[in-house]
């Protein structure tokens, strides 16, 4: 609901209302401005947002600060990683080196880039496909709805991690295939949520008014229903990003996802976890730190957005 200034005709009004003043006093506050106000008053979400921006800055500008590239092998460290490869400012390996003598700092920068990209691309596909699919199913209802949702039900009850791995095995382990596989599966929950909202939205008066005004079905969906779904879609998309990052990390932890020389948080955690026995703890802790901090931030931001945007919980 948007409050709009009401223009009062001065001549028609017996009391002489100052037109300009009236508009100022009834300045509209949009739903989004309202939500933003609520969001920024919620301290944990603001802190999380700042942390997330810092992680993103680290991921996309970190390579300017690295003393070593992510592919160079520091031969002086090789074979003696446990002692020579420890994190230090002098050697330029701020986060130490990995098992092969590569600089862990630039590896973590590279891994953060890929993990964040996977998260955003997956959530992006979910938003576009899921919103469209759910809105169409909910809007048309009847047999179209039940067929479309039955398909979603069936796809949802397949254990998707195994299917994703099957896809990766059959079509080769590559980052493109990982994007495709995650994109194929990420939109299912989104479409369910969107459909549920659409079912109640399409009974509202403004949809009826649009229909009475002669708007076509797809105009109604895109101009009237989808904009009203944005709140819940944004909340859910924020919670989807960490899920996508988790999925990617899971698969990369098994060595089936991102392939060398590329890397991701999951792959780095896997390598770090594999060498824990040799006392090179930093190889696990640095990627783990970024992974955990990012997931935490996303969950808190999601919570804050839900409080800000979802009118049901207020």
């Amino acid at each position, binding site marked *: 609901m948007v409050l709009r200034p009401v223009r009062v005709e001065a001549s028609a009004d017996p009391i002489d209302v100052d037109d300009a003043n009236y508009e100022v006093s009834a300045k509209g506050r949009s739903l989004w401005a309202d939500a933003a106000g609520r969001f920024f008053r919620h301290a944990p979400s603001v802190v999380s947002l700042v942390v997330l921006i810092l992680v993103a800055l680290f991921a996309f500008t970190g390579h300017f600060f690295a003393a070593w590239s992510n592919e160079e092998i520091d031969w002086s460290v090789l074979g003696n990683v446990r002692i020579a490869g420890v994190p230090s400012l002098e050697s330029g390996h701020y986060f130490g080196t990995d098992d092969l003598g590569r600089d862990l700092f630039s590896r973590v920068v590279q891994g953060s880039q890929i993990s964040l990209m996977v998260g955003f691309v997956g959530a992006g596909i979910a938003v576009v496909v899921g919103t469209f699919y759910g809105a169409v199913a909910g809007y048309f209802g009847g047999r179209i709805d039940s067929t479309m949702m039955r398909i979603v039900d069936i796809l949802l009850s397949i*254990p998707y991690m195994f299917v994703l791995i*099957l896809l990766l*095995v059959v079509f080769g382990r590559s980052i493109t295939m990982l994007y495709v596989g995650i994109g194929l599966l990420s939109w299912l929950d989104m479409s369910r949520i969107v459909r549920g909202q659409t079912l109640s939205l399409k009974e509202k008066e403004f949809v009826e008014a649009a229909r009475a005004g002669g708007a076509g079905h797809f105009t109604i969906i895109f101009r009237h229903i989808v904009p009203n779904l944005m709140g819940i879609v944004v909340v859910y998309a924020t919670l989807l990003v960490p899920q996508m990052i988790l999925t990617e990390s899971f698969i990369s932890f098994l060595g*089936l996802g991102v392939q060398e020389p590329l890397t991701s948080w999951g792959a780095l955690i*896997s390598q770090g976890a594999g060498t824990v026995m040799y006392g090179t703890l930093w190889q696990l802790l640095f990627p783990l730190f970024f992974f955990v901090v990012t997931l935490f931030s996303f969950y808190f931001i999601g919570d804050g957005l839900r409080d800000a945007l979802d009118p049901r919980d207020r």
Partner: protein
Amino acid sequence: MLKYILKRLGVAIPTLLLLIIFSFVLMRLAPGGPFNSERPLPPQVLANIEAKFGLDQPWHLQLWEYMVGIITRFDFGPSFAYTDRTVNDIIAQGFPVTLTYGTWSFVLAVLFGCSLGVAAAVRHNSWLDYFSVGTSIGAQVLPNFVMAPILVIVFTLWLRWLPGGGWNGGQWNYVIMPVIALGTSYMASIARITRSSMLEVLNSNFIRTARAKGMPAHHVILRHALKPALMPLLSYLGPAFVGMVTGSVIIDVYFSTGGIGQLFTNSAFNRDYSVIMGITILLGTLTIMFNLIVDILYAWIDPRIRY
């Protein structure tokens, strides 16, 4: 009720068939056959091998054979990588291991999760409550592939209490860490769900009535509050089960327990299509069956659900 069960079966059975067909078609779509190695085989030999595995037949006949084999004889066919073993042999070798620690994690997660959730709700805003809320937030960002290395650092590397991997016929000290690593995040989720639904129930009118008539507190909680509070949990058990089945892959790989997940990833690296398909279909069937049972149980316990 019967109508509802039939309706649920109407989703479950097509899903299963779809899963089988999907995996089969994927396998046939794979660029290069399973026997195309770096060293090309003489065409005669390749033809013989393909005849042995029935790959020379038209693909719809192969699919039919495969489905009939699974449904009537529970037979997933021969392995492509280990010619002397069938997929059934390979699965039979790993499945008991996964089942052992999977069952333990599931049971312990439900038991501890429920108790923690109920205790947190009963002692609302106490340190116990904060502890349960804190762990459930923490566990969300500590999935099993993060828990597993952390446990190894603490219990193997620092305290030297537990072995860092292996199975050793299921000896207790080899089982502990897989169980904890697999179950913790689900325990936390279960605790969170139980806590919030218990809080809601404890604020409802019938609990106030029970208290007002002087019923002892433990009686109110065990007799009246527990059953409705555990209802929402039942619908979470399906996803939790799926998550644990999936998580067992990580556990198997990290702790080298030799369970079904390790076989799955090994076959994924060997491109042993028949084993991957077999395991996918088996675990898919398990999850679909489990979800079916949970749904039916839910409808049976809660008479308000009408279809």
